[in-house]
């Protein structure tokens, strides 16, 4: 199986580390890159062309939802998912409209497993 | 306390007597206790509830605050309060049969608490109080307080005349002075660098400073018609009927001295002597230039501004 490329977008360093940890523990050969905000994510995604993008919703500057929308347009075949502790109907709806997934925080091994499952298929 | 076997009927009796709805859920959210108050006000008997899931009995509670609160108690060991303001009539409870027939639910305050018994068993205790009477009492008290407050003429903090009293008095005295052709003087004064005082010493001490200054100055007015009032935050005003400008200025100077003599420390003051001081603006009208109320107030304000501009801790008169 070809190693996948993942982009983690979150302004919290600890969050990024945790997510990276959960992924690399299962797939040490995958390429995992990080971005701390929406602009950085878009810039990195251009060159990286990730298979999976995980975005925190609550970020300073461009928020996760807008960044996800931009990335969806840029990467039509990538798996993109929003992560947030604040699960509300409005956010869920937005995610559906943009065509991205939605996962509840806190980040756990099970939740990350669910998110990377499509790449393992 | 009696032995546990004997005290059980006593406790059961108490639970069924108290004027609070009491129900207990086990870790699977099934009802294990439903007291008489609950029976009486819900129309649901204890026997019907035993071992049934709370959400089978009240399915409309799913997805609401009460469900979240029960979850927090059972899973996170934390208690919750459901205020009647944010959760109107959550459970179908009625004050009496008549209310039940009309469908008028009781106003409820609910608390949800974790209950930990020795052997690692966790339960959830839900207490419901009828707050209808309390709400009505509070509404009545609040209306009365509002009515009272609109009649009072005294400032809450300092006890001197308040702005309302000042507004009525200046109006009355201006007209009187114009009619009688007598002089009228007005002082506007405030505490120098007061914002800095608050920032440095805290608002509580700021209030104490206002009280001290007001107390010292309000006793200086000699005549019954003289009025010392709190005009605004840290601003005070003094109305002196039948008082020409020079007499008013003399009194103002005495007031400045009196505050200085209090020697209240003010470390954040930008003056050399780090103590609390005041600046005073004086304006007067006499038979030749008796004007409107606002003209006199504006003049006193301008004079106060001049006093500040010239270095504070002084009197200026127009």
């Amino acid at each position, binding site marked *: 199986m070809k190693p996948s490329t993942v982009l983690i977008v979150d302004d919290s360093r600890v969050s990024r580390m945790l997510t990276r940890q959960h992924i690399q523990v299962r797939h040490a050969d995958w390429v995992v890159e990080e971005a701390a905000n929406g602009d950085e994510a878009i810039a990195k995604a251009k060159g990286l062309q990730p298979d999976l993008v995980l975005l925190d919703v609550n970020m*300073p500057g461009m928020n996760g939802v807008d960044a996800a929308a931009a990335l969806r347009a840029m990467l039509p075949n990538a798996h993109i998912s929003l992560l947030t502790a604040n699960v509300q109907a409005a956010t869920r709806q937005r995610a559906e409209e943009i065509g991205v997934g939605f996962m509840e925080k806190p980040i756990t091994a099970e939740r990350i497993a669910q998110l990377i499952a499509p790449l393992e298929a | 306390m009696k032995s546990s076997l004997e005290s059980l009927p006593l406790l059961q009796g108490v639970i069924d007597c108290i004027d609070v709805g009491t129900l207990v859920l086990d870790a699977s959210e099934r009802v294990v206790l439903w007291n008489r108050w609950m029976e009486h006000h819900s129309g649901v008997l204890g026997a019907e509830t035993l071992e049934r899931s709370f959400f089978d009995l009240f399915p409309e509670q799913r997805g609401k605050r009460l469900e979240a609160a029960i979850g927090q108690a059972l899973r996170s060991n934390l208690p919750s309060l*459901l205020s009647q303001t944010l959760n109107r009539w959550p459970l179908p409870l009625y004050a009496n049969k008549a209310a039940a027939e009309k469908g008028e639910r009781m106003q409820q305050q609910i608390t949800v608490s974790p209950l930990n018994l020795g052997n690692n068993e966790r339960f959830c205790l839900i207490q419901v109080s009828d707050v209808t009477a309390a709400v009505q009492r509070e509404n009545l008290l609040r209306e009365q307080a509002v009515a009272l407050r609109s009649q009072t003429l005294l400032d809450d903090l300092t006890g001197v005349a308040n702005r309302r009293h000042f507004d009525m008095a200046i109006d009355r005295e201006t007209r009187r002075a114009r009619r009688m052709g007598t002089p009228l003087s007005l002082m506007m004064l405030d505490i120098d660098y007061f914002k800095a005082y608050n920032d440095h010493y805290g608002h509580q001490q700021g209030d104490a400073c206002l009280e001290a200054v007001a107390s010292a100055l309000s006793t200086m007015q000699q005549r019954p018609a003289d009025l010392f009032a709190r005009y605004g935050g840290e601003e005070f005003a003094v109305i002196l009927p039948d008082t020409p400008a020079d007499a008013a200025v003399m009194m103002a100077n005495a007031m400045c001295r009196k505050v200085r003599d209090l020697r209240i420390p003010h470390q954040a003051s930008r003056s050399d002597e780090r103590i609390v001081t005041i600046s005073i603006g004086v304006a007067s009208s006499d038979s030749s230039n008796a004007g409107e109320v606002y003209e006199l107030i504006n003049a006193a304000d301008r004079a106060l501004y001049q006093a500040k501009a010239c270095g504070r801790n002084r009197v200026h008169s127009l």
Partner: protein
Amino acid sequence: MVRLTELEHDALVELFNIGVGQAASSMSEIVNETVTMSVPAISFLTRATAAKLLTSRSTGNGRLCGISQHYSGAFDTEAILMFPEEKSQEIVRLMVGEAMPLAELSAMEQEAMSEIGNILLNSCVGALANLLGHELHGSLPAYHVGYSEEILAQAGSAETAVLMLHIEFVIERQQIAGDVAFIMDMTALHDLKQHVADFLDRSIGGAQP
């Protein structure tokens, strides 16, 4: 004053953000509006400094409305949610909607603020406790109004540290800022730091630069 490493500090910020995120979820259910809350910053201060900071930032009459709950177990703390007094009526009105007559609103405003404090504090502390793997015991909310020094004196006058969270609260496009103070003694502070360090060890497999 106990110092956290940069990583421990980041972890706490993230844990609190998860907590207030969950609180915002609960509140949006009550209000049927989008509610967002975030914790942009946390700091460790002495009680005196905390009181001064709150005072210096106030634009109204300096009076605050505070809702406090006591927690014990994994660590001991008095947690207090504070809003400027003039903002609290605004918040309740936003939560309740315009349907309520003004007189009735003022009467039960304190109770509503108590519940808001209860939801927010339990979410924060609950998330913290769950993620750190230790349980806490909490009290029901108590309501106070006064200046910052008075409200922070709830936990007594002993030498204490305050963990301050600044909270941004957005509801119906209105942005309201508040603060949460966790008042702790040195023992509690040490306990908290230890728990955070343990959490990092468990999750990220040991200290990293």
